[in-house]
């Protein structure tokens, strides 16, 4: 329990400290230290949950079980590596005069606040608090996306705010409906908003209300996950915000929103005894895989390109959980993990590449490998990994998703394969042109921190070759919960 309190309190305290001292030279170090402490606390929490099993804390308002503990650990890890990456990155942005010291303070403080809201959303047992945390995460990221205060970034932030605000209002209505259904069953009022209590009584909940609630939930949280046709905010927000923010948006926030949908699905499945929720997720998922893959080839901005790629992968995960069953859910969880690691690694590399070129336009970035082999190869390998090349982990999870689809939903397989093929064709050529060729890019003024890139890619490689037994047991347990 104390570990959980630490996981939630450290980012909050760090955020408060950085709100005061975020503009100083050493602020980036405080940011890294805070994230490291969060990571350590999350590691302790993980060890605790593995040895003692699921735990409840703070009058049952918070809980940790196999499903959310791995997301908490992943969130803390990517939060830490992003803070390491952001130190030289933001310093260069500051030197280029893109950011004043005041903005830097806002950035550091909001980064930690964002981490805090995501960790609260993941660990809370209360569906109402989950909503509050998701909305708070939106507010924090709106400020981060608009950090540069250029017309484009303001436009992106406004679009993000309005779309996600509308979306999340639908989720609130869904939450109210679930609470309403639960109140019919619960005589005592306290437990009616808690996941653990809801799960215990899920077979008794009124099916009509829950199916209606799920529609509102998937539309609401689906907006934040970037499900087509609610994805419009995502590429803009990724392209116009600072790169560390793009990395945590893609790597973490989308996962957290998807986590909320998965939790709802478990609840609704129990009440309905049909495949209604799964079918809905499969429909949204398939659409979300196909549509962005055809947008990829038209992108000129490198961060938009990878934003669209994130949408596609979220669609794949949604589809996997929609299919359900042990293998598909296992694959979904694995894909969430490897996508999060790979995509944040790519954004780290892309961020520095864009700084070297002074632009995010793909055609104007050339010869990265010649100027900086680490950035160039980081981008190249990361892109190969995200496109599903073996031996990286993305291949493993995509392979598992595809084989399950062949077995149970053969009609979906060609659609998925075509989408993945189109994505490969459109992205590979673009990345190749950026990595190789005659350099147009200039070296960086400060040494970039590229350890995170290779750490992430290394982890993805390991997950592709060999999943450690305790990790696969962990995924299996969570997959069993999801069903």
């Amino acid at each position, binding site marked *: 329990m104390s570990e959980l309190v630490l996981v939630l309190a450290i980012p909050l305290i760090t955020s408060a400290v950085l709100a005061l001292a975020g503009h100083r030279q050493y602020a980036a170090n405080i940011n890294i230290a805070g994230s490291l402490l969060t990571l350590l606390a999350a590691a302790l929490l993980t060890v605790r949950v593995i040895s003692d099993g699921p735990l409840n804390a703070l009058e049952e308002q918070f809980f940790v079980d196999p499903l959310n503990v791995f997301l908490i650990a992943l969130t803390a890890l990517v939060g830490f590596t992003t803070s390491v990456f952001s130190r030289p990155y933001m310093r260069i942005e500051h030197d280029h005069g893109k950011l004043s010291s005041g903005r830097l303070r806002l950035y550091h403080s909001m980064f930690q606040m964002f981490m805090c809201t995501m960790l609260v959303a993941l660990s809370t047992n209360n569906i109402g608090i989950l909503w509050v945390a998701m909305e*708070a995460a939106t507010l924090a990221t709106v400020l981060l996306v*608009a950090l540069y205060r250029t017309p484009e970034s303001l*436009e992106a932030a406004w679009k993000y705010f309005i779309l996600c605000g*509308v979306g999340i*209002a639908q989720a*609130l*209505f869904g939450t*109210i409906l679930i*609470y309403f259904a639960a109140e019919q069953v619960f005589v005592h009022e306290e437990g009616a908003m808690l996941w653990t209590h809801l799960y215990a009584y899920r077979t008794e909940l009124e099916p009509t209300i829950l199916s209606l609630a799920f529609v509102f939930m998937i539309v609401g949280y689906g907006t934040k996950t970037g499900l087509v046709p609610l994805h419009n905010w995502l590429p803009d927000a990724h392209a116009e915000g600072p790169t560390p923010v793009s990395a945590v948006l893609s790597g973490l926030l989308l996962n957290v929103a998807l986590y909320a949908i998965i939790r709802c699905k478990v609840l609704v499945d129990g009440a309905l005894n049909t495949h209604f929720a799964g079918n809905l997720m499969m429909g949204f998922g398939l659409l979300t895989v196909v549509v962005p893959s055809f947008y990829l080839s038209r992108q000129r901005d490198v961060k938009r390109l990878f934003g669209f790629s994130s949408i596609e992968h979220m669609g794949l995960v949604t589809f996997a959980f929609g299919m359900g069953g042990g293998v598909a859910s296992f694959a979904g969880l694995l894909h969430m993990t490897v996508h999060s690691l790979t995509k944040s690694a790519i954004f780290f590399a892309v961020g520095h590449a864009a700084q070297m070129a002074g632009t995010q336009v793909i055609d104007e970035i050339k010869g990265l490998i010649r100027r900086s082999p680490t950035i160039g190869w980081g981008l190249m390998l990361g892109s190969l990994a995200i496109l599903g090349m073996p031996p990286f982990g993305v291949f493993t999870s995509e392979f598992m998703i595809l084989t399950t689809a062949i077995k149970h939903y053969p009609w979906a397989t060609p659609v998925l394969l075509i989408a993945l093929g189109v994505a490969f064709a459109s992205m590979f050529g673009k990345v190749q042109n950026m990595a190789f060729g005659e350099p147009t890019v200039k070296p960086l003024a400060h040494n970039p921190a590229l350890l995170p890139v290779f750490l992430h890619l290394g982890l993805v490689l390991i997950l592709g070759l060999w999943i450690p037994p305790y990790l696969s047991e962990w995924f299996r347990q969570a997959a069993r919960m999801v069903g």
Partner: protein
Amino acid sequence: MTPAIILSDALGGQLINLCAAIMLLLGFAMLAQRRILSLINLFMLQGAVLFTSTVIVAYTTHQSHLYWSAGLTLSLKVIALPYILHRLIRKLSVKWDVETILNIPTTMLVGIALVVVAFNVAQPISQLSGTIMRATIGIALACVLLSFLMMITRSKAVPQVIAFLAMENGLFFAATSATYGMPMVVELGIALDVMVGMVIFGVFFFQIRQQFDSLDIRHMERIKEE
């Protein structure tokens, strides 16, 4: 307690239905309103109706935590947010007419269709609800959808925000009508989010105007879909 001040369930129910009807009417009024200042006043009025209905539910059902919820509505939606909005409007000196993307009669017709949809969707819920105000769930959903429509059809930043806040009103109305409100900690959290969101909006208004020389969202077309 003298019988005169004890509201019977029937009377309470009727009063709440009256409030619900006024909520819906205000929803349509906001949809049709062209001037920003009147829009803010309508929003304030909607908050006041929400406050009244919450108090009536609290009184007739003896749910004491609803008084807190009502107090929150009064201080936030009737006093604080309209005050902030009025100040913003004064500072930005935007009193101009609101331009809509669709013309107003069309919007109203679409709004009527939305109300029909909302009632159909809410029917299974209303049948199950044991609360005295079950008839109002459909209206609450209709208010949410009307605000949603307003958000889509307005091209200026300030009316979009007012629509967003009105949507929150509709949701709170749904929560009170279906379940006698949500647990206090959740309501406080939502109120905090709305408040912080409003402050961010306020900052944004100035930034947007500085960058675009206007609060018209249609000027924001820099990011082109390639």
